[in-house]
């Protein structure tokens, strides 16, 4: 029993990442009808927003500390971040410690900007081209983005730790009256899951309860008619692209403490996210979220020791197997609608 709960919990944090990326992919596909292979790169760019912000925060200058001496007896030179000068030492240290959550504020405008720029600069010209061309050009863009990041940040993983308050693990079992230590779960993963739920909820609420969202939904259903009603649907879709980029970016920002960012993390997630989108049903937002969590949990169940002993290697392939089975038995995916991408 506790093993099962543990696996579900383990699956949820990865599932949240899948769900967030797949949500963005589906948003883009549902609004613009574009298959965006660069979405994984947006996830990666989000993660590197964190790295950039924490580098900016720790920009420092040398100060001679007269109270301490180095081993030669000279006054010790200490690097002091500028942020200490501005906010004082305790606040400054706290700000640096909280760099990852703070990056959310930093990443939202950056990612929306990148998204809008990408849509206006490149994707716009590919609405009328076949899907294969869209796949290819965004694939090229993904390579370019990834190589630019590699050029500036190097090829190694860059650790970005969670705030001190969230280091450590929660003893889950003790809460539900099981033996202590039976189910231990890191705090940050709980934070990630809650964050993902809030973000997904926010996106759905935005689409469901605002006038803007209503127009976008109408445009997803019938773009031409909305255009005929005198609404500039293209501009709204561009903004939706920006929002989708921001969702992917935020997923990346918060993922950094779980997995240190490196330049090809986007590609690793991209393939799986596409599988998630297809399993959920092309163009279905709830489907993408559901499939994200389902596949995340499925993956973590498949990596249980007992399962691996039974079917060696299944943890590596379970997601793809699930996709193949789903595509062959339910071609529209779990929650796919009729008439979307049926060729």
């Amino acid at each position, binding site marked *: 029993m506790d093993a099962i709960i543990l696996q579900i919990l383990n699956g949820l944090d990865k599932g949240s990442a899948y769900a967030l990326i797949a949500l963005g992919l589906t948003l883009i596909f549902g609004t613009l009808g574009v*298959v965006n292979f660069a979405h994984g790169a947006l996830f990666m760019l989000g993660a590197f927003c964190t790295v950039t912000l924490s580098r900016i925060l720790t920009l420092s200058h040398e100060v001679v500390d007269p109270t301490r001496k180095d081993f030669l007896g000279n006054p010790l030179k200490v690097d002091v971040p500028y942020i200490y000068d501005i906010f004082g030492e305790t606040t400054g240290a706290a700000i640096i410690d909280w760099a990852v959550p703070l990056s959310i504020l930093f990443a939202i405008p950056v990612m929306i900007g990148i998204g809008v720029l990408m849509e206006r600069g*490149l994707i716009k*010209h590919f609405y009328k*081209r076949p*899907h*294969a*061309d869209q*796949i*290819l*050009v965004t*694939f*090229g*863009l*993904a*390579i*370019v983005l*990834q*190589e*630019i990041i590699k*050029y500036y940040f190097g090829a190694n993983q860059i650790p970005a730790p969670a705030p001190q308050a969230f280091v450590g693990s929660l003893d889950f079992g003790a809460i539900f009256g099981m033996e202590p230590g039976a189910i231990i779960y890191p705090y940050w993963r709980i934070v990630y899951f809650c964050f993902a739920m809030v973000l997904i909820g926010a996106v759905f609420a935005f689409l469901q309860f605002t006038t803007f969202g209503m127009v976008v939904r109408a445009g997803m259903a019938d773009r031409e008619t909305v255009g005929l009603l005198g609404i500039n649907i293209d501009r709204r879709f561009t903004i939706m692209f920006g929002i989708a980029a921001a969702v992917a970016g935020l997923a990346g920002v918060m993922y950094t403490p779980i997995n240190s960012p490196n330049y090809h993390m986007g*590609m690793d997630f991209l*393939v799986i996210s*596409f*599988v998630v989108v*297809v399993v959920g049903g*092309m163009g279905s937002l709830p489907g993408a979220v559901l499939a994200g969590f389902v596949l995340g949990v499925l993956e973590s169940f498949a990596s249980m020791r007992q399962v691996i002993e039974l079917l*060696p*290697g299944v943890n*590596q*392939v379970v997601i*793809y*197997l699930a*996709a*193949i089975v789903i*595509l*062959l038995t339910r*071609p529209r995916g779990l929650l796919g609608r009729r008439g979307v*991408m049926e*060729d």
Partner: protein
Amino acid sequence: MFGLNKKDTSLLLIVAALVALAPIILNPFPEGSGMAQFNAGYPDLMQRFVIFGIFAIGFNILFGLTGYLSFGHAAFLGAGSYAGMWMMKLLSINVIPAIVFSVIIAGLISLAIGWISLRRSGIYFSILTLAFAQMAFALAASVLTPITGGETGLQTNLNDPRILPGFLGGGSSVDGNIPKPSLFGIEMTSSFEVPVAGWLWTFNWGYYICGIVMLIAFYIAIRIFRSPFGLMLKAVKSNQQRLNYTGLNTRPYMLACFVISGMYAGLAGGLMAAMDPQVGAERMQWTASGEVVLMTILGGVGTLIGPVLGAGLIKYFENIFSKINDNLLHQWFAFLPDGLEDLMVTIIHPFIGKGWHLTLGLMFMAIVIFLPGGLVEGGQRLRKMFGRKSEERAPKTTPAE
């Protein structure tokens, strides 16, 4: 000739001549001159040109004729390589059984994958093939380690059985060294060098064997393009639904096409193993599948010569761009004033050496955006721009809708 029309025969002959003379053509700069690093006429690189040419020709038979974009072709390449390696370990060091077996294995695997993937089309097909290839990669790197060597890969060893008799390349070892892949005693790595007044031409056995195989593959591809079967595939590309409505079942045609394409990839994989007897799982990764897509697009989708051009170009640039370094750039721009020289070097620096993939990505995007027909279309446009009215002979036909 060979059942081809005049135009195709001349194309085949031109390609044959280029393949035969490549060691000379690709070495235009004298040895020891400053431009010698642009020479591509050394065996290893030339082998890669033709092998990836075969791979791209095969991919183009699927993507170019039917429009089905497979993102998993590297799986067949990898499977072919592993199969070839096992033949060289178990049967004989002779490359023929290795190549034949790699084609067969790749064909079987592509039959299985195609059987399932071809139930869907469009983006779903791409994702399905991608999923299969990723599965193959993950399995090869982990569970199938006894067969694939896992992360370390597969090599020929001194104590491999090689059960065939000696004159067929069997036996574990002759001189105490690990035997090198050969064709009835001719080693793939052996070559003879001809120094001609400062130039050094290397004629390599392995390259010529690959070259002949590629010519055969190219010839078969032309025949497929011109056959009723090929026309059927083109019809699938233009409108599969209409074809279904006329009562034709496209599945067998598609499956045959997919298997042929997979066998081409397997052939390339087998040759790769035969030229350089080591295989790693990374050969199956989806970026490798992406690479062959790039080659085909760059050269020109659906054209005969395009994929070969694209493969050669990408492999050439990969080699040359990654060799250029800052010192070399400083040499080139030495004629500029110092400040300007440094500026130029700083601008170009991210695109060379390790940054080669950046150049590749940009080049690829530019091709997809501005020249969807690839280099071949570029050539046609140039010809149209400078050519006389002769191009207007063929009036543009619009399909009846």
